[in-house]
């Protein structure tokens, strides 16, 4: 397990400045309600503007509407969007993972059909992995697809499918061969591209802990999926899904969820007439800034390793586990320091962010793989030295 030191090039710094200037002009502070990291609002018009700038599907091939840019370039853009609280909800999953897995495993026809829309910020995707009885033990899932002519008929339920009520598609991981045949529950799984508006698909919102309703359950009642919508190989779903999870885990979305709470705490302290910036605030910020700084550089290191052809999935697991705990720890430090009694309707942006962060923070260490599962994955990368064997 190694995180190499790297440095942003001049071109990469220029991109960073370009995104900062764009956000300051497009979404000036005070003109919108910023969100918390990847939980930010859904705004197709904003996603379309990012698409026009060439900032979606950045690492996808040019011939499918992408930009052949690096993982580091994509990281720079997403990092700036997240820290600004920009409304990334519409394109988030499509840009982060659905696009990349389609580019990697999809047929030529699928790439031509889906990728240009993803890169324009138009096509939106949800994640079809978890089920009511299959969370951490994902391979135990029971949604199944049965062969029918030139396609499959899918029956089952998927949950935690954020924005499925308004999104276009989701990638469904389901069983295409029974475990009794394959002998291993990780075999016989497949990924299908399912239209969320297809007959037999029913979406039910699941009210989230903060009162929002973009968390969903999707019921699949004999949904017909033609062969041309099978993603990758039939039976190879587990391996493909694991690679999708690597896209999901190693990014800045895992340490920026509560960043704006800290920034607003600082803003309100500096702006306070009596100068509320005492030694306790300095201690909190000294600690927080040091952590943000090192997490940022570890994230750049992972992206650089991906660009060099590596597959740092163990590193990504190690990273997500500590980064998401940090998101909670830094929030708790703010809560321990503030005089504010958080309530609604919020009297300030700081209060609004604090309320939402406090209510949603438990999800940070659960979504995308729980702390416990990630520790098990990361531990596989910790092997005895020659001396230890």
């Amino acid at each position, binding site marked *: 397990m190694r995180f190499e030191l*790297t440095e942003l090039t001049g071109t990469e710094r220029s991109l960073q400045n370009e995104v900062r200037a764009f956000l300051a002009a497009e979404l000036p502070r005070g003109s919108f309600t910023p969100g918390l990291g990847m939980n930010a609002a859904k705004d197709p018009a904003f996603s379309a503007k990012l698409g026009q700038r060439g900032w979606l599907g950045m690492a996808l091939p040019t011939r499918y509407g992408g930009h052949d840019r690096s993982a580091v370039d994509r990281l720079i853009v997403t990092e700036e969007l997240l820290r600004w609280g920009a409304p990334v909800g519409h394109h988030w999953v499509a840009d982060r993972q659905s696009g990349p897995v389609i580019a990697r495993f999809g047929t030529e026809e699928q790439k031509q059909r889906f990728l240009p829309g993803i890169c324009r910020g138009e096509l939106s995707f949800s994640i079809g992995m978890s089920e009511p009885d299959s969370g951490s033990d994902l391979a135990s899932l029971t949604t199944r697809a049965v062969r029918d002519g030139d396609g499959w008929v899918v029956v089952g339920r998927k949950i935690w499918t954020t924005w499925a009520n308004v999104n276009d598609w989701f990638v469904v991981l389901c069983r295409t061969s029974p475990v009794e045949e394959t002998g291993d529950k990780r075999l016989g799984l497949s990924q299908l591209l399912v239209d969320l508006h297809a007959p037999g698909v029913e979406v039910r919102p699941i009210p989230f802990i903060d009162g929002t309703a973009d968390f969903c359950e999707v019921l699949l009642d004999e949904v017909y999926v033609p062969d041309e919508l099978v993603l990758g190989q039939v039976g190879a779903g587990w391996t493909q899904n694991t690679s999708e999870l690597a896209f999901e885990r190693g990014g800045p979305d895992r340490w920026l969820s509560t960043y704006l709470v800290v920034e607003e705490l600082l803003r309100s302290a500096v702006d306070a007439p009596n100068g509320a910036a005492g030694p306790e605030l300095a201690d909190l910020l000294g600690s927080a800034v040091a952590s943000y700084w*090192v997490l940022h550089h570890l994230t750049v290191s992972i992206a650089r390793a991906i*660009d060099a052809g590596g597959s740092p999935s163990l590193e990504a697991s190690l990273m997500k586990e500590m980064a998401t705990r940090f998101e909670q720890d830094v929030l708790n430090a703010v809560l321990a320091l503030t005089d504010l009694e958080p309530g609604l309707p919020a009297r300030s942006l700081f209060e609004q962010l604090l309320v939402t962060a406090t209510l949603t923070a438990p999800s940070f260490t659960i979504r995308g793989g729980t702390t416990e599962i990630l520790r098990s994955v990361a531990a596989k990368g910790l092997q*005895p030295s020659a001396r230890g064997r």
Partner: protein
Amino acid sequence: MTAPHAAADPLLVETVGRLLGAAASFEAVEQAEADGWCAPAWDALAEAGFAWISLPESAGGSGGTLTDALAVVRAVGAHAAPVPVAETGVLAGWLAVAAGLALPDGPATVVPGDVILRIEGGRLRGEAVVAWAARASRVLALVDGPDGLSVVSAAPAVLDVTRRTNLAGEPRDLVRFDVAVSDVELAPAPADLDRDQLLRRGALTRIVLSAGALEAMSQLSVDYTHQRRQFGRPVAAFQAVQQHLVTAAQCAVRASMAADLATRAVAAGDGAFEVAAARVVVDEAAVLGTRAAHQAHGAMGVTREYPLHHLSRRLWAWRHEHGPAARWRRQLGAQVVAGGADALFPTLTG
């Protein structure tokens, strides 16, 4: 494409690792704690000139970069080698060369940059805890005098040195300065050198030593838990134990990246932000990392017969040297407050 940056010479890293693997054995480190000196490790490094890397050959140094010098320091940390390599070259040697004083022969040491020594009425006075002072050929220091900041080089014989150790049993002597200026070497400090810079370098050596120790501690914990069996299985097979291993590895990863970043920044001529931030990162990693490693080792880790304490006691000691981490944290936070909210993100991605 990776941006160009000066990485340490891999051959050097390998050579130093091999030398210390032999010279800083468990027994040698134990013996050094009784003797106050580790001759095998010091002699091996000094004979190869590794204690004077980054000092120009024209001044009697070994040449090379600060990055190379700190790669040696990192190996010293990883092997828990009780030798004043950081003190001799990166701190005392650097200070001597900067002021045009003679590079001391043999091991040298330095008064940390946050200690105030004064020249008044022709005498140098003050008090400091100084690493390996009794064994050093010279003690270097920055002092405040009537003519401004000066660099002093003094033989321990003219000072009042009381032997003490840190938590790891490494010599940290109490040195009282009360000596005529004519009995020490003295030169004006160059205009671009100040206390902050010396303190920053001192802190950087502790950051780098600690990163080396945390990496070694993580691996030692993995090795031990794969050998130790309970309930019929290696204890590393238990998820509860794996969680400690992951925590220790994460601490090593964070400390390692922080040390690399701080080294690069200081080598490029600045590093005020990076050293402070790295100090905070490494401090937290030392606390959480030692806790996880000890828990993974069970009772074996708290005996003197097993090497974990060579690493953990050093990590606890180094937190407090060259400015306690808590002070660095508060100063870093005060800088952030002074910068304001809009500067926060550019600062941490800088």
